[in-house]
């Protein structure tokens, strides 16, 4: 098995768990905070037969929306952190001013090790795109607040641009821009 595939498998595990945990925790925590009666049943056939029921349509809409938001944020925060970290690391290599700023904000740890690979950013971004697609699908089916769909759309756009920029940086490492050296 290739090393790339092994690494991809290893990296994919954490966002996959976070995606499911974000949604499940979102549902149960929000229900617990607002004291919504919740029922878990298994009378619908499908891939999985377990279903979560709420008594009221408004409650279902509210819980589904906020749990979608929890899932989205729980994936977006680490992805944005990885992209920002890589961008900062690259910026410090090219611009000494960034080192001063990073030191000022006590974020030197972020730039002391380049342990974030493009593969890692790509996998996390892929999970975020998948999550955003599910959220947008829910908005179109009138199961989630539309503002959550807008947030998902904006996040996807920015994370996509960030991933693209990281890809450019990685490509430049392998095939450096000749104008820079000659």
């Amino acid at each position, binding site marked *: 098995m290739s090393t790339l595939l092994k690494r991809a498998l290893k990296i994919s595990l954490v966002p996959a768990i976070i995606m499911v945990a974000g*949604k499940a925790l979102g549902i149960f925590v929000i229900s617990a905070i607002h004291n919504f009666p*919740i029922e878990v049943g298994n009378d*619908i056939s499908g891939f*999985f037969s377990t*279903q979560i*029921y709420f*008594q009221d*349509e408004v*409650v*279902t809409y509210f819980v589904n929306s906020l749990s979608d938001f929890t899932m989205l944020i729980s994936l977006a925060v680490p992805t944005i952190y990885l992209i920002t970290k890589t961008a900062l690391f690259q910026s410090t290599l090219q611009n000494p001013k960034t080192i001063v700023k990073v030191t000022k904000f006590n974020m030197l740890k972020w730039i002391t090790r380049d342990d974030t690979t493009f593969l890692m950013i790509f996998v996390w971004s892929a999970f975020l795109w998948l999550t955003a697609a599910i959220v947008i699908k829910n908005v179109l089916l009138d199961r989630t607040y539309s503002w959550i769909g807008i947030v998902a759309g904006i996040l996807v756009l920015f994370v996509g641009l960030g991933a693209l920029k990281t890809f450019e940086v990685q490509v430049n490492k392998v095939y450096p821009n000749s104008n820079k050296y000659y």
Partner: protein
Amino acid sequence: MNKEKIKNFTKVVLEPFAFGLLALLFIIPAITVINLEPITKAIKDINVLGVTNKSELQINAIGGSHIIFRTEKVQFLDNIYSYTTTLLGRDSGRYSKPILEIVNNKEDEISLEIYGSTNIPTGSDFTIIIEDQVYRLQGSQGNTTTHKISFVPKKKYVVYLAIENFTSIQFDESFELSIKEIE
């Protein structure tokens, strides 16, 4: 030499499985998350002894996923239960889905007036099936029929909505089913 061959063979055999596993790592969470989405269903109102339900008529949406039935809702306004759904564009054929659960918790038999139609007739035939009995709601010409159906006490009925169209439908349409209790 042999060991090297076995190692290379294992590598070749394992690689497609690893790709499959990687794909599953994306597919399984997505399906799980979609399945975790809560749905609306009236929770049984159990009394202190935990034996009886409220003595009334209960109409609950069954929910779940289907290739053409989307955004199913049940509302109760002015003593009329209304079930609405969006039917997606579809190929010619017959489609059916359990849509409602009707529970007569009363001591006596009740009669319900049931009628349903789409906003615009699309040449589809709409029927409901209750206890293997078929009731036509809207014919392919758009003609609608109102049915009076009796429900015996202390019994749960599952209502199926069946749609048949002989030509493919290119656009989405909304369907509304109204249920009214006859005093």
